[in-house]
């Protein structure tokens, strides 16, 4: 991938709960901040792509941003909404269609676990009626088996959450800004064994926008840019174990994250050992642990040693989820994947404030995973 596409502006509307402000308004806020960061106007944008899962279409933003006739593609792609928007914006620049493009994601969800309709997922009604169609159960079932197979302790799950809240306390766009101690996390009410209340992220609100440009434009503007070394978005392979599965093939098939991760590393000609900072999907504590291995950063079971030694802390061997991840930021689904890229951009620019990874990080890795089995990885370099 030698298209030389750069992120030259990054904007965010703080995650969490903002009463009285729609999801889309939070997206507009993020776009304005990203344009201002890039030193550009909305009229300079040659292509836009974005969306939400629960807050409507993105192109209505032109009511607020300006009627410039810009082509604006709406994305409604579940957890991959942000990744898809970024891919479209990337391709618009790479193809030579325009010099400047915007990717935006936003959302505003109701409180409490997501409730899904069996029919919308092609599943029979009894599956929902009997109480087996919950995303939280899938995460618990996947980590429970993983813990048994690879010797991961319950305390390791707690340490992931403890790290998330510690990092979130340092991050101005995070929702949860107070540290939570390990005892409180371990002794909190159980949601789905082995995961307690503090080990799950919550549906939330927020917006993120990124301004992309080609190399010529970046030089012309003298921007503080970060290169997109690769993006890989993949859907699930046959037989993979995913959310909402009344049955699984035996033996199960591959994993979408492994496929996307390998593709992204190969396209960027970068190895896991080269990565300086990583944002990995942490819908719950177990997901971060399993995704460390699925993305190639460690072998199955080594996470226990990583967490005991603090290797994934800011200042550790590979800082993971430096802004507190989904656990501390919450999950506005349409914005969540772009938040990860935003965080890497700020880390590589040295603008991450109290949570800045030391040693001038040069390679940032982000990974989003979601229903019904898809994964998007982006690698950015400086």
């Amino acid at each position: 991938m030698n298209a030389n596409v750069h992120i030259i502006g990054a904007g965010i509307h703080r995650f969490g709960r903002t009463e009285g402000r729609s999801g889309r308004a939070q997206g507009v806020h993020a776009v304005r901040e990203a344009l201002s960061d890039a030193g550009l106007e909305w009229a300079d944008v040659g292509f836009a792509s974005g969306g939400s899962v629960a807050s409507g279409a993105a192109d209505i933003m032109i009511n607020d941003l300006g009627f410039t006739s810009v082509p604006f593609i709406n994305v409604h792609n579940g957890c991959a909404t942000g990744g898809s928007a970024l891919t479209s914006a990337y391709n618009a620049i790479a193809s030579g269609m325009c010099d400047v493009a915007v990717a935006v994601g936003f959302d505003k969800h109701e409180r409490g676990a997501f409730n899904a309709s069996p029919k919308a997922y092609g599943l029979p009604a009894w599956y929902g009626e009997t109480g087996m169609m919950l995303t939280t159960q899938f995460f618990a079932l996947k980590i429970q088996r993983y813990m048994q197979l690879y010797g991961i302790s319950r305390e390791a799950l707690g340490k992931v959450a403890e790290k998330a809240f510690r990092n979130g306390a340092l991050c101005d766009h995070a929702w949860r800004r107070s540290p939570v101690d390990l005892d409180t996390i371990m002794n909190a009410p159980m949601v789905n064994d082995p995961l307690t209340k503090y080990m799950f992220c919550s549906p939330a609100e927020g917006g993120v926008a990124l301004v992309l440009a080609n190399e010529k434009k970046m030089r012309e503007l003298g921007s503080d840019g970060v290169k997109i070394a690769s993006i890989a978005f993949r859907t699930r392979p046959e037989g993979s174990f995913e959310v909402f599965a009344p049955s699984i093939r035996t033996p199960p098939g591959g994993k979408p994250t492994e496929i996307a991760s390998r593709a992204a590393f190969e396209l960027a000609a970068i190895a896991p050992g080269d990565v300086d900072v990583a944002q990995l999907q942490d819908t719950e504590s177990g997901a971060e642990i399993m995704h460390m291995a699925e993305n190639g950063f460690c072998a199955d079971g080594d996470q226990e040693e990583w967490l005991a030694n603090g290797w994934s802390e800011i200042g550790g061997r590979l800082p993971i989820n430096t802004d507190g991840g989904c656990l501390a930021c919450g999950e506005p689904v349409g914005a969540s994947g772009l938040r990860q890229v935003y965080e890497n951009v700020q880390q590589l620019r040295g603008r991450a404030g109290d949570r800045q990874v030391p040693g001038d990080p040069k390679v940032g890795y982000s990974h989003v995973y979601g229903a019904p089995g898809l994964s998007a990885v982006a690698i950015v370099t400086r």
Partner: protein
Amino acid sequence: MRNKAQAMAPIAKGLWSDGPPASLIGGRKENGEIVFPFPEEFSENVDAIVLSPSGTLWSWTSQEFEPKAPFAGLKPFVPFLLGYIELAGEVIVESRIVDTTIDKLRLGMPMELVIVPFDDHRCTYAFRPEQRA
């Protein structure tokens, strides 16, 4: 022998045969892959097959909070166990787990199918640790 729950209406038709022994009904696709339940759509080339009434525990969890709709369980809500049971050489099925407590569950332990009451008038399928006579 039919148990008491089997006299109730099944939560859905075609999920299991009463036997004995009661067994889930799956579908074998043209490529040999077995799925559960038998698919409602695109089932022209899928053969209905009776699955093994016993298997081994693949994973498990508890449901501690009351799910939102379309969950239709009894009120007030009672937490329950669920998991995946591997039916050797066939398929791994998701199921409620009954007649045990979570601390007794172990990866790979033998499990058997049982039909249990779901609410006051319907029954559903579940697995429980194998009870040797």
